[in-house]
């Protein structure tokens, strides 16, 4: 019933990564050291609004895209 000590494997930006279990999206960003204001989160192909960062918990096998703005024409 308490899996938060274990690590799980998720796909982030195309690569498999080990992260602690039970992280919310907000927790994940903190874990990755990313500044919330500058990132957009897609979780299993669904965009996660900032106001839902605490509602969504990342589970093993989830696919997550973390994107931002880069120079482009």
């Amino acid at each position, binding site marked *: 019933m308490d899996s938060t000590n274990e690590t799980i494997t998720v796909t*982030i*930006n*195309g*690569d498999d990564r080990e992260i602690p279990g039970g992280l919310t999206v907000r927790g994940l960003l903190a874990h*990755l*050291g*990313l*500044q919330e*204001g*500058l*990132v*957009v989160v*897609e979780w299993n192909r669904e*965009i996660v*609004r*900032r106001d839902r960062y605490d509602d969504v918990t990342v589970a093993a096998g989830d696919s997550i*895209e*973390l*994107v*931002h*703005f*880069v*120079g*482009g*024409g």
Partner: protein
Amino acid sequence: MANEGDSMKLVDEPLKIADREFESRLILGTGKYSDNETMVKAITASGTEIVTVAVRRIDLDRTKEEGVLYHLNPEKWFLLPNTAGCYTAEDAIRYARLAREAGFTDWIKLEVIGDEATLLPDVEGLLEATRTLAGEGFKVLAYTNEDLITALKLEEAGAAAVMPLASPIGSGLGLLNPFHIRLIKSRLSVPVIVDAGVGTASDACVTMEQGVDGILMNTAIAAATDPVRMALAMNQATRAGRHAYLAGRMPIREQAVPSSPSAGMLD
């Protein structure tokens, strides 16, 4: 400078796109600069108020400095996200939604590319994505080719601006088809902004002289030997072409007409 002082009095209506107004008619891309300091200097010299940005994955293994927001102040320039690199309507729609989620704007410079070698637009996919995104409230600025029919359909599909190309992205070939650009401008109500292909200042100037509402460029400045000076050149050339269009050029004659009086010559 005296002359720019004068230009202040020579008012031009602002460039209106959707619900916004801009004084400058030049839009800059932010790609391909040797370094961020040069990019910011060039953008400043260009006098632009709008810069485009791309949506890409964060590189979790590299410095976080790569994000363009570390270098461009969104208070100072309006950030216009694009869907560069998307080859289907579905992809472009996905990128547009992600871009909007960043919280800066619901504007999108929509690109649906049809071919990797030429980066020419896929007009079928472009029309489909425009309909969908306009329906979701996006302000769509659609990168398209010189085809009037597609331009008319984009307007009907709800595009906020139509952006025909001068020539292929990054080619620097300049305005290959002034006639078709003039044709598009003459038939559309939404702003027409020429996007891609401009190579040097005279290309920007002659493009504005066709009467279009603005120009978007990137490589012509980023790939110049001196990007900051070229940015200033583009700033001036865009204004020059616009003013020349508004001023109404002299008629062309295939004969000479003296500039000095013929009367009053000595015996």
